[in-house]
């Protein structure tokens, strides 16, 4: 497609208690843009997690992040050691960035 840049898309889900750590890793990897969704629930190795539970803090967050290939490698290198303690998941896929908005990747 015209006017598009090939990129990598990350989709990361972790418990909200890891958010600060995750953002720090992304910052250190030189990431300049990401989107953050809170109040995510789900099922995983720790069983069902429900962000609406008022007694147990079980909220997940989701980070969606688009960046170029070389940057993606840095993110992978930064994230991998932490993923074990984070739990959750990290998916990577290909996507196209439609040119237009100020560059934030």
């Amino acid at each position, binding site marked *: 497609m015209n006017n598009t840049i090939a990129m990598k898309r990350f989709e990361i889900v972790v418990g909200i208690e890891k958010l600060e750590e995750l953002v720090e890793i992304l910052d250190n990897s030189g990431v300049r843009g990401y989107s953050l969704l809170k109040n995510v629930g789900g099922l995983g190795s720790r069983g069902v997690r429900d962000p*609406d539970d*008022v*007694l*147990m*803090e079980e909220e997940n967050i989701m980070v969606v992040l688009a960046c170029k290939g070389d940057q993606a490698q840095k993110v992978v290198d930064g994230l991998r050691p932490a993923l074990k303690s984070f739990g959750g998941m990290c998916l990577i896929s290909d996507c196209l960035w439609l040119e237009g908005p100020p560059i934030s990747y």
Partner: protein
Amino acid sequence: MATLQPVVLFFVFGVLAGVIKSDLKIPEALYKSLSLFLLIAIGFKGGVAMSKYEIMEVLPIATAMVVLSALIPLTAYPILRFIGKFTQADSGAISAHYGSVSAVTFAVGVAFLAAKDEYSEGYMVLIMALMEIPALVTGTILARAGASGGETKWGKLMHEILTGTSLYLLVAGVIIGYYAGMVKMVEPLDKMFMDLFMGVLAFFLLEMGLLAASRLKAVMAKGVFLISFGILFPMMAGLFGAYLGWIFGLSEGGTMLLAVLYASCSYIAAPAAMRIAVPDADPAISIGASLGVTFPFNIFLGVPIYWEMSHWFHTIPV
């Protein structure tokens, strides 16, 4: 027999709504707002009452009662570990819950006394606020002692305990109430924090009922032991509390409130602290026992029983 307070019926209708799968739901923001209100209001009320004492006079006795509350988890632990056959982590975590307190149970006790027009010492609130500290620390030590594996994050735990919303707001409420009492400016604030107390408690109990209903299954799964423990242990702890209150010369009302504090167990502050200190404990067990068994027992039967205990001690000729 004491008359059942209308306010606890809200708990019943909360449970019932859960059981019949009504679509009744309390918005999360309302639940959180109400709990902020209750904590501040309980603190404020106690602070105003305390402004009538010399603080220095009551401090030693209050400290003693707080420190002695560390005995509760120490007693609970072996029962859970060796009779209940729970893991070390779970036993420690549950102990911490039962050593800690429930502000709402306390509030029901206060309402009980108010309906009877009975006096109680204002500084009981301060004791409640502080009782979380020894319980959570002792519970954590029990869960961790001799256990290999991850270091206990003591720094993080103490930060959580000392700055956690419940302790923080109770203490803030006490200080503001104390100050308002001293400068005689309680007046316009009491319209909110005293007059509406019972109504807010009603709403809160409705939600507690819903929450308790949602936990029932988890408790049932753990069977007879947990249910017996959730009823018998608080009675034992309550008896100990009533005895202490009487020994320390509290009024009948104050003695009963101390029994309530010793008997009640936490389902808000303790789970938050245990998640940090003992992450390998299963919160479903401790919250289930606390909220599904002990809380309803305490507000329906416990409170009148502790009142009888207090009364009984006070009839002993000295």
